[in-house]
């Protein structure tokens, strides 16, 4: 037993050494052991790749040992030793909330270095990308150092790699939303257009992931409170607007862009994915809701091409004078935009669908009739 403990201590020291010294460490993995040869070190560390691997045969032993030591050392004053055990235990099994909480206690007592902790939680996420605790620990660190000091490039890089490698990683997307609201919208002028561009690229390459669509919808919705400030090329392309247009115009422009550019491309290239249909529902539903809130109506402008939309919207939509007041149903239905929306959906549903899309289009037609009240 003593001999075992000695060995475990040795492994533990070495892993901790790597985590502390390699500033760019990116990856941790458990490697399935091939033989039962315990005379060879179970640590595989490739410096050029900044990757650290631990053979599985020692993982269970190491975790059990570290766990015992943590509770033994918890009340003592030697925080560095305690942290060493925590690092090992959490790397092997990041789902133990108690250990994260001990780490928070140390963090609150200013006993840990924040940048090392960010690196460590990133390492945990490279191995268990869906570890909720690791994300929430990162947020705790940002709260401690102040949101303004957050390095968003680093955060974005981390989120890119975890969301790319693990499908439907809601924890990671929630974290992105947190960064978006607490950091990007507050400290960056081009946040909205950059995230719109980012999410468009994302949904085009991850067509069946509701998470990505949900994030895009969240960004679009947040246009309500934050007008697109910096007009870059993307926002010009999407919004086609001048400085005079209101937040409400912007959302409508964006939804039209979604309906005319983004969705047709997705439907065409990736038939049979329900997530695309759900996104379509979001677009139509939101557009319908906005139309209800638009105040004055100009019926004389007949144009509604994607590019002509700017002209039309100037006429159709003017910001509300006394808060949000809904148009009467028939008034709303007489707007050109509404008519065009109905026509657009009718033409779309008259298209040629195959296989799974036949069922999905039937559901969509039903949804339009029962939920939005558009009969096509």
């Amino acid at each position, binding site marked *: 037993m003593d001999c075992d403990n000695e060995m475990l201590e040795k492994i533990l020291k070495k892993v901790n050494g790597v985590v502390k010294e390699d500033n760019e460490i990116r990856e941790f*993995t*458990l490697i399935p052991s091939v033989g039962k040869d315990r005379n060879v070190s179970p640590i595989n560390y490739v410096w050029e790749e900044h990757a650290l691997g631990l053979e599985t045969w020692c993982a269970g032993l190491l*975790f059990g040992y570290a766990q015992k030591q943590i509770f033994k050392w918890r009340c003592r004053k030697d925080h560095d030793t305690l942290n060493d055990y925590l690092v090992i235990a959490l790397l092997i099994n990041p789902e133990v909330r108690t250990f994260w909480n001990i780490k928070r206690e140390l963090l609150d007592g200013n006993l840990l270095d924040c940048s090392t902790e960010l690196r460590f939680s990133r390492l945990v996420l490279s191995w268990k990308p869906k*570890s909720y605790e690791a994300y929430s620990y990162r947020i705790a660190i940002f709260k401690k150092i102040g949101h303004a000091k957050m390095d968003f490039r680093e955060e974005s890089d981390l989120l890119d790699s975890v969301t790319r490698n693990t*499908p439907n990683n809601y924890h990671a997307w929630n974290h992105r939303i947190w960064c978006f609201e607490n950091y990007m919208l507050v400290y960056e002028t081009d946040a909205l257009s950059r995230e719109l561009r980012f999410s468009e690229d994302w949904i085009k*390459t*991850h067509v*069946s992931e509701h998470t990505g669509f949900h994030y895009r919808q969240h960004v679009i919705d947040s246009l309500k409170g934050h007008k697109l400030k910096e007009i870059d090329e993307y926002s010009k392309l999407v919004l086609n607007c001048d400085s005079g247009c209101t937040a409400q115009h912007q959302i409508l422009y964006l939804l039209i862009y979604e309906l005319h550019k983004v969705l047709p491309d997705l439907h065409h290239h990736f038939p049979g994915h329900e997530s695309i249909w759900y996104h379509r529902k979001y677009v139509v539903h939101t557009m319908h809701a906005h139309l209800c809130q638009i105040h004055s109506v100009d019926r004389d402008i007949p144009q509604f091409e994607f590019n002509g939309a700017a002209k039309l919207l100037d006429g159709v939509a003017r910001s509300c004078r006394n808060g949000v007041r809904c148009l009467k149903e028939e008034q709303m239905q007489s707007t050109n935009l509404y008519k065009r929306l109905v026509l657009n959906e009718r033409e779309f549903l008259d298209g040629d669908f195959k296989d799974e899309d036949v069922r999905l289009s039937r559901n969509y037609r039903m949804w339009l009739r029962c939920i939005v009240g558009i009969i096509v």
Partner: protein
Amino acid sequence: MVKIFALSVLHKTDAGAVWLKSAYDVQSFSYFQRGSIQEFMGFVSKTIVERTQAASRQSVKEGEYLCHVYVRGDGLAGVVICDQEYPSRVAHTLITKFLDEFAAKYQPHSWPNLQEKDIEFNQLNVYLAKYQNPREADALTKIQEDLDETKIILHNTIEAVLERGEKLDDLVTKSEGLSLHAKGFYKTARKTNSCCTFG
């Protein structure tokens, strides 16, 4: 994710299938897994080609991956391993395209004697990069139209493709082409599904 992981050209004879050329993109996997995953993809390609009849097309689902196979009448076979989001039609279009080009470069009589290391067919790597975006295939209308006439059999697991009595686990254990590491990873992947287990 819309992603292609592997493109391979194989030659199928009565004795089995032989790799002629392969291209892999496994950068998205963790460093220690890449080698094993690549080996395993090669193994799966060969296994499925051997169990696909000449002049037929199949698509086989396994977990979140899809493996598309086309074995031509003359024994030349192509495999695309991709993510489930990658459109099947485009994958099969791509197979037709690179097999045609391979056959134009190497005559059928030379196939039995070709060695993988002697073959110069860099086009496979070029296509692996280019067709990561399936929209690139929009230009290949001719092949796509021909494909519309063809029946593609879809299987929901690899087991469905195997002959009666065969099991993937046994094939993996018996395989001489897979290293111990790759077998270890395969076993772990089968066993672990949740985020809390280890070892």
